[in-house]
């Protein structure tokens, strides 16, 4: 991990373009700027983004996504490790089937099922985000761990590494790029998914979209949509820095 960061830091050529989207995002949350730019869409009238400042909505939104990803890493990586240990092929097929199933169930359905038990608000939103983001992280984690050359595992074992040492020193570092790619995909998806959370009263950038829709104010919808898109692109660019080139 540290070597990946170090290597990507070395090339300014990769870092500077990656900063473009975060910079645009920062500009987008400057109070009044984006609504004024989009006013022509609402017949010249500056859309009312409500009492909560845009930067705060964006931060809440980012908070959802990041805490969901944190939970996903804590759940998904151990899960991927557990099912790829030798002698657990049956467990692995089960996990693959479940993650495959998870991918086909719509987010809306998960949220609709969660609300009756968890109520409205942050809880069902987080559940939806975590379940949805778990899929790419677990499947990429499994794929990455399975792709580690058996000769390397044999060498590691033959030199006297314990199972734990093989995992930390060989298997995880080698599967990290694939795992990070999964994390990146799920993060980007979840910026979009989290907008639905506003419908459950959880807040975030989705609030602008929902209010805009109910007021039939295209400019307001666009403020929310553009900011979510910039947030997704920013996270994608920043996480991309951790993925080695080529």
């Amino acid at each position, binding site marked *: 991990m540290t070597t990946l960061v170090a290597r990507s830091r070395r090339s300014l050529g990769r870092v500077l373009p990656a900063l473009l989207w975060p910079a645009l995002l920062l500009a987008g949350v400057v109070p009044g700027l984006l609504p004024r730019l989009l006013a022509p869409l609402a017949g010249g009238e500056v859309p009312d983004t409500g009492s909560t400042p845009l930067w705060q909505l964006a931060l809440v939104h980012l908070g959802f996504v990041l805490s969901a990803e944190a939970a996903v890493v804590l759940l998904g990586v151990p899960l991927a490790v557990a099912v790829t240990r030798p002698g657990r092929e049956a467990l692995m097929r089960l996990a693959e089937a479940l993650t495959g199933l998870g991918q086909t169930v719509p987010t809306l359905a998960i949220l609709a099922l969660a609300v009756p038990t968890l109520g409205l608000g942050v809880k069902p939103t987080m559940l939806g985000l975590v379940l949805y983001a778990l899929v790419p992280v677990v499947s990429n984690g499994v794929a990455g761990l399975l792709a580690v050359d058996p000769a*390397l595992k044999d*060498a590691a074992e033959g030199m*006297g590494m314990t199972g734990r040492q093989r995992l930390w020193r060989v298997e995880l570092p080698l599967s990290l790029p694939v795992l990070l790619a999964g994390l990146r995909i799920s993060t980007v998806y979840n910026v979009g998914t989290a907008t639905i959370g506003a419908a459950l009263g959880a807040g975030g950038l989705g609030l602008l979209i929902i209010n805009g829709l109910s007021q039939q104010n295209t400019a307001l919808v666009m403020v929310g949509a553009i900011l979510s898109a910039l947030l997704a692109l920013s996270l994608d660019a920043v996480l991309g820095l951790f993925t080695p080139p080529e």
Partner: protein
Amino acid sequence: MIELQHLEKRYTNPQTGAEFYAVKDLSLSFPSGEITALLGPSGCGKTTTLRMINRLIEPTGGHILIDGQDTRRERPEQLRRRIGYVIQQIGLFPHLTVAQNVATVPDLLGQPKAQTQQRVLELLELVGLEPGRFAQRRPAELSGGQQQRVGVARALAADPPVLLMDEPFGALDPLARDMVQDAFLEIQRRLKKTIVMVTHDIDEALRMADRIALMNAGALAQFGTPDDLVRRPASDFVRQFLGEDARLRQLAGLKAADLMQPGDATGLPQIDGRLNARSALSIMLRERAGAVAVLGEDGQVKGVLSWQALEQAG
């Protein structure tokens, strides 16, 4: 010394449910400080035998003693850190530098960093890789031959008395293989490790090994020096496996300079001392000569290689 006592490994065929022996009642001693080759046709149980020594495979019967101690009395990880391990696929960790790869076992043993660093430099030097040029490279930036040199350095890092090698030079092209084999023999002359080397390459066994254990279908066919197997095959299997040109193959593993004797070289055809004894024989046959003059690297005559010396070489 490594002793195998009635060693046995049984497997169950998953299709038929029938049991079969990958290794059967194998008793054998690998002498200290020598290279012993485990030789034999594909599937005869060489790898299984080797991997039972460091307990990557647990035997279903028999005992293995290293310096008199049963290997089962120790945790497998502990045991393996005292045994060097080199494999055909080399298996260098691609995310680590050459230096970090070599430092693997000393790190596992918790040896002081500064001491390990020093040791890594010595080892790279030993296997013929200039530390300044290679220590900080990644394995992918090395040739196959250079990678296997690192593999050998890594196996030697904690100075283990025993080295297990499974077809260590099998993945190298012939030229690189010759060079790495030479370098390895040179290292062994100094270090005198107890080495068990799996190979299915007869030439490699005849050339590298002090002793050969020839296996067939999980059992020992013959155990002896290369000369024993070539001149005194214990069975038709041994004779057929080595082939009718076994003696020539054996000579191919010997250097003319190592076989020459002092003598009068006037009028004899001259050969380079770095040639192998089989090439020397070929030249004698071509020149219709009973002996050749052997030249050193400076081009001066160093000795005479006679027909009799070739007959007796072994």
